[in-house]
């Protein structure tokens, strides 16, 4: 009885996921009348704009990841090691992007960093790209910080640091050879998550007028019939790949030594 209800709840709920996935897949294969084909995909892949915008977003994602790691890992480490009192403050800040809508943040960017401001980042495309990267870093901050902080929690940061110091290691060595390898898995899962967020992001890129994949998707969605579904399938595949990689990385991770009680 209980199990039957559980099955019903589970299967009905699953329809929310399964139907759209089936729908978009079927639609993406239906470009040719009367038979399934990959025409929509071929059309998408042949579009030079697809390649340009996709490449742009991939590069942006990679820069965002590098910058995010360099910003978050030392901070999380330092807060854990030296300034645990700051933890609530830092955590609050990292959660701000979940509360303040992205569109409001980018609105603030446009107001603060326009061509007539003290830091005219939007004045050049290079500057706008940097601003966009900062924006992406802010969007990914909650996920990146939590991933890294969880990773740091599973190792004993203070003891590892002291052990390294007692062996004569300086800060760069401690950070690069001791801490980073130990939270590598956490950093990677944060990185894949960042990638998934950045690759299809629309609002920031559209309002900063950058030729990213998100605005391109919008353009295709407004003008084509079957290609959007093909793009949805591709996007879903990329998201799936990122999450799958997180799982694989987590499984390959060296298990921390069992704690003695």
């Amino acid at each position: 009885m209980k199990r039957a209800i559980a099955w019903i709840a589970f299967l009905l709920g699953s329809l929310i996921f399964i139907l759209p996935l089936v729908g978009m897949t079927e639609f993406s294969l239906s470009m040719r009348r009367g038979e399934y084909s990959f025409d929509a995909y071929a059309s998408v892949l042949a579009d030079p704009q697809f390649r340009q915008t996709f490449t742009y977003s991939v590069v942006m994602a990679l820069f965002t990841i590098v910058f995010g790691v360099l910003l978050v890992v030392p901070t999380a480490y330092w807060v854990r090691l030296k300034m645990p009192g700051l933890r609530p403050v830092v955590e609050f800040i990292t959660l701000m992007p979940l509360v303040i809508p992205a569109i409001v943040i980018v609105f603030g960017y446009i107001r603060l960093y326009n061509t007539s401001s003290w830091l005219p980042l939007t004045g050049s495309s290079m500057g706008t790209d940097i601003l966009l990267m900062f924006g992406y870093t802010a969007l990914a901050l909650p996920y990146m910080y939590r991933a890294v902080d969880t990773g740091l929690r599973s190792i004993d940061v203070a003891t590892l640091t002291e052990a390294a110091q007692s062996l004569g290691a300086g800060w760069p060595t401690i950070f690069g050879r001791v801490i980073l390898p130990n939270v590598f898995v956490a950093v990677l899962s944060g990185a894949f998550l960042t990638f998934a967020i950045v690759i299809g992001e629309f609002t920031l890129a559209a309002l900063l007028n950058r030729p990213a994949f998100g605005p391109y998707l919008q353009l295709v969605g407004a003008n084509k019939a079957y290609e959007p579904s093909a793009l949805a399938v591709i996007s879903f595949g990329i998201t799936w790949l990122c999450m799958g990689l997180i799982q694989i990385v987590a499984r390959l991770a060296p298990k921390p030594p069992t704690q003695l009680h």
Partner: protein
Amino acid sequence: MSPHPPSGGATERMSQTLSLSRRLPTQWLGVVPFFLFALLFLILPALSIVLGAFRGPDGGFTLANIVGLNTPTIRAAYWVSIYVSFWSALLGCLIGFAMAAATVLGGLPRFIRSPLLTFSGVASNFAGLPLAFAFIATIGPAGLITVWLRTEFGVNLRAATGFNLFSTTGLIATYMFFQVPLMILIITPALDALRREWREAAEILGATGAQYWRMVAFPILLPSLLGTFALLFANSFGAVATAFALAGPQLNIAPILLFSQIRGDVLGSPGLGYALAFGMIVITGLANALYLWLRARTERWQK
């Protein structure tokens, strides 16, 4: 410590530099980059919007922008946004809870769990335009299900149920795709944390299953439920891309109105735009403050 006199000086020097670094707040240097970043690209931008909302064209303080929000269009935009966010968060919580409870407590085989969580991780990140495309392909005017219902059963989805994907109902339905898995991801650990002993202790004390849920399990889960609801609310309140792709710029919800305002000053007043954005911060802020307040009330029993 070396007992030999020659090295004594070095030790002393070292302890001097150490005590110097104790006195100067050098440890703050470690968090400067982070706080600088947060200030420049998170706090100041938000603050500039707030200030802009209270500044008139001449640069002086004014409440005119806030008052100016009180037009039918803007009121409706906020209202529809709150409506969509509230219902998508509520339904997302309910459906996600049902699925998580079915998996954790309902006696479904254990092998379902791990794929469900992985899939939820994927689906909760599958938002924006591609999500809209997927729903258009499924229940849009020419979507898989719409066409199937029409050709197999002669049912016109829109005429029969009044369902229109490009309306608020359609938006809510579409948001389910990421709201439900987000709920599953957050609530599954909370359900796992319900100890078997609590249920058994309640049972042996004579409680029915319903009494156990009302008096023990639900109060324990309530903080997580409230927190997730607030998160889901903010999540859909700020979402632009999906709505934009579904209904285009003419759908009157707050984030899309703001989008149009940033692009082309459709409100005809920059100050009004800041006020509109400020209102969005206030609403998500209020939702979260409400959550924190309720949580403090429900969590007296926690450390």
